[in-house]
């Protein structure tokens, strides 16, 4: 209670609503681990960003506080739901996720490196694709809808155990052509508004878009609990929303285009801590 009072007082004193610059603050999770929320940009975006800054810095005092404590973070409700699913056998093989992977905590280190090249399949795979591969081919269970509730909850569980670890997707070797395709999409203007991802998140981060703050558009915090719809939101659902807002026909969640875009956007945040499930507007 005292913490909330302090946070609100601080916001009242520092109330400068017209400023959209990232807030100077430190994200300490559960009073235990300090998360890297701003750091030097990786080499491949150093010419355009300089410093990479998590979307957490672009949010209000109360929203930032909500993410700093697992009890206060409503996204963790869904992590708990996924933990039950993790341990529940499903499908013709009678296996659960835990049957092969052990405890969910043992998945620490997985989120930071996805999307990732899969040698056997000969493609770059997102976490969602890998989960559905497990369900279909290891468990003999039905695939989940790409941005459905079960899927987004499971990706939140897998992200949550890697919180604090730096995003570190590989962009070279066999993943390079997918990464290049994603970069191409990032800078391609679409829709009636003729806007690219870069129009907002590179050229205008720190500025206001109507009454909201434009971030650098990193995805280290996904899946993210949005105050707007009070549920977890998958990264491809976010991409779809953004592309739709340029008044373009969007790609589908799980499409090769969005997989490539996810790899590229993730790589721009290489070095930022995994935050999922984060809390955003």
């Amino acid at each position, binding site marked *: *209670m005292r913490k909330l009072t302090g946070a609100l007082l601080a916001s009242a004193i520092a*109330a400068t609503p017209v400023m959209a610059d990232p807030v100077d603050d430190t994200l300490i999770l559960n009073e235990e681990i300090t998360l890297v929320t701003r750091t030097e940009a990786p080499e491949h975006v150093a010419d355009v960003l300089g410093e990479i800054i998590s979307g957490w810095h672009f*949010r209000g005092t*109360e929203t930032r506080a909500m993410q700093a404590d697992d009890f206060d973070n409503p996204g963790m409700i869904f992590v708990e739901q996924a933990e039950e699913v993790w341990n529940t056998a499903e499908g013709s093989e009678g296996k659960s996720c835990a049957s092969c992977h052990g405890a969910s905590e043992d998945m620490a280190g997985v989120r930071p490196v996805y999307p990732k090249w899969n040698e056997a399949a000969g493609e770059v795979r997102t976490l969602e694709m890998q989960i559905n591969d497990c369900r279909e081919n290891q468990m003999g269970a039905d695939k989940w809808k790409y941005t459905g509730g079960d899927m987004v909850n499971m990706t939140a569980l897998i992200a949550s155990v890697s919180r604090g670890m730096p995003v570190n997707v590989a962009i070279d070797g066999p993943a390079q052509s997918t990464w290049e395709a994603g970069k191409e999409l990032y800078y391609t203007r679409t829709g009636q508004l003729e806007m690219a991802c870069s129009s907002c998140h590179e050229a205008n981060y720190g500025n206001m878009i109507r009454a*909201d703050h434009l971030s650098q558009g990193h995805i280290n915090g996904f899946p993210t609990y949005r105050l707007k719809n009070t549920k977890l939101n998958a990264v491809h659902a976010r991409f779809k929303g953004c592309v739709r*807002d340029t008044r373009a026909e969007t790609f589908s969640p799980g499409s090769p285009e969005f997989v490539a875009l996810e790899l590229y956007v993730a790589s721009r945040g290489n070095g930022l801590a995994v935050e999922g499930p984060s809390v955003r507007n």
Partner: protein
Amino acid sequence: MELTRRNAIVMGAAAILAASLPVRGNAAAGDLIAAFTGGAEVGTGDIRLIAPEIAENGNTVPIEVSSDTAVEIMVLAMGNPTPNVATFKFGKLAASRAASTRIRLAGTQDVVAIAKLEDGSFVQTASTVKVTIGGCGG
């Protein structure tokens, strides 16, 4: 009255005036307050309300009410379609007469907290919360 552009402007202005006259909200809120206080006079004093000056999203606005001697605190959002939000009754083992929750606000408006104190009197306080409209609608 024929609906001309001029009349529409006049009506609009009248509507704004009407909306702004009873500053403390609508009739429903008045009824709720009367039901809570039994018609007793409501003063100011031992009641505090902490709410953000600007809420990032009206769906989830953190608030805190506190008092040293309240037995009961009612919270109202004067601009919501139904103004009642919550009523906190403190029991024998409440260590403080304080509580925090997260509320929905339909738009920029006054949030009001009314406390019934141990001595049977009623006090109130209010705080204006600006609710921002999102960015690109995404």
